[in-house]
């Protein structure tokens, strides 16, 4: 029975979300979602900053920025930037600079720890989540004016 294109698309996109078996897969999903969010935000930001050249348009922008929906969007933006950034650094380190990759494969046949998922790479993953959450909280506090720096 033939599936419609939309059904196929939904099935393929749902493959990103289930099953979440391990934390790396969660990081992959979040990296993808934050990337999409940022890629949509970027053109809007460019248009918005262009309006900074016209005081009237800018005042209208500021009114828009005040709305609660935009504020929530900004908080999500902060998380998106930090998570995508830190996870990106982790991926750069492993895939491009080859940190945590064995220079010599171990000689034992019975491998208890999977080198791609344990020890070194897991530490980087936990660091990513921890740093993202901490900096998101700090950023949100700054955004809400609750954190005055100096």
């Amino acid at each position, binding site marked *: 029975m033939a599936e419609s294109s939309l059904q196929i698309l939904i099935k393929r996109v749902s493959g990103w979300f289930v099953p979440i078996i391990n934390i790396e897969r969660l990081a992959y999903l979040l990296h993808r979602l934050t990337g999409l969010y940022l890629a949509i935000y970027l053109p809007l930001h460019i248009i918005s900053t262009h309006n900074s050249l016209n005081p009237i348009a800018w005042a209208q922008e500021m009114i828009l920025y005040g709305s609660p929906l935009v504020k929530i969007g900004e908080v999500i933006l902060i998380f998106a930037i930090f998570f995508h950034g830190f996870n990106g650094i982790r991926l750069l380190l492993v895939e491009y600079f080859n940190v945590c990759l064995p220079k010599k494969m171990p000689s034992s046949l*019975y491998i208890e720890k999977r080198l791609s998922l344990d020890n070194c790479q897991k530490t980087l993953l936990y660091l990513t989540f921890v740093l993202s959450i901490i900096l998101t909280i700090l950023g949100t506090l700054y955004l809400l004016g609750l954190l005055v720096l100096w």
Partner: protein
Amino acid sequence: MSEKTSGAVSKLQLSTPEISLKTVSKLITLKVKRYDPDAGRYKLSIYRVSVSRFDTVLDALLKVVRDQDHTLSVRYSCRMGICGSCAMMINGVPRLACMTNAISLGEVIEIEPLKNFPPVKDLFVDMDQMFRKHRSVKPWLIRRDEEEQFTAKKEYLQKPEEVDAYRLFSTCIKCGACMAACPTVASNPDFLGPMVLAQAYRWSADSRDEGAHIRFDIVDNPNGVFGCHFAGACSAVCPKNSDPALAIQLLRKSILRGKR
């Protein structure tokens, strides 16, 4: 007596309820999602079967076939985790049925055919495409002098360290569990998949092989190694701990650096 099972069992972390030494057998429910090729869709069959502490999910399914429903089709062979035939989705995770303890999964076990493969009947799936992709990366020794290779007078020698470089990835049994777990395989049917890419690395890293550049050309595209975004699910489910994600990372390293 320790309850720990021997080291060859999959390392997936599942909650294991306390299994008392007194539990001889238990009645569990199997919810089997079966594909009906005549109707062209899935249907659910629910069975109640009695399992002992030591029975695997495959044992439970074969009990169902023998005593309750002769029409249930299951692919299996060695029933000891080395042939790779019985991979299926057990409680949403791709696993080998013969290596999964049934009683530790709880009262109800949900069994489905392996994800990301076209179904044939009931619980078994069509593996042709996976093996076609496998062949496309030339998983054999490539030597510049082919004539010499087939009329060789002596063995190709290898030091132990040279074997270590690829030994882990040669333990792959081609069961397809990693392909079922991978999110990119789910969304892109042309993606080669973790098993294929790991095998491309296994043969390229073999010191006896002289065809690494050929394989690198084959996988250097968005359907090859660059389709992998490191979700790591393949290594998480591999029943032999063969770590395909590591092989892909090493393959990516070789390609980006331009050498083996």
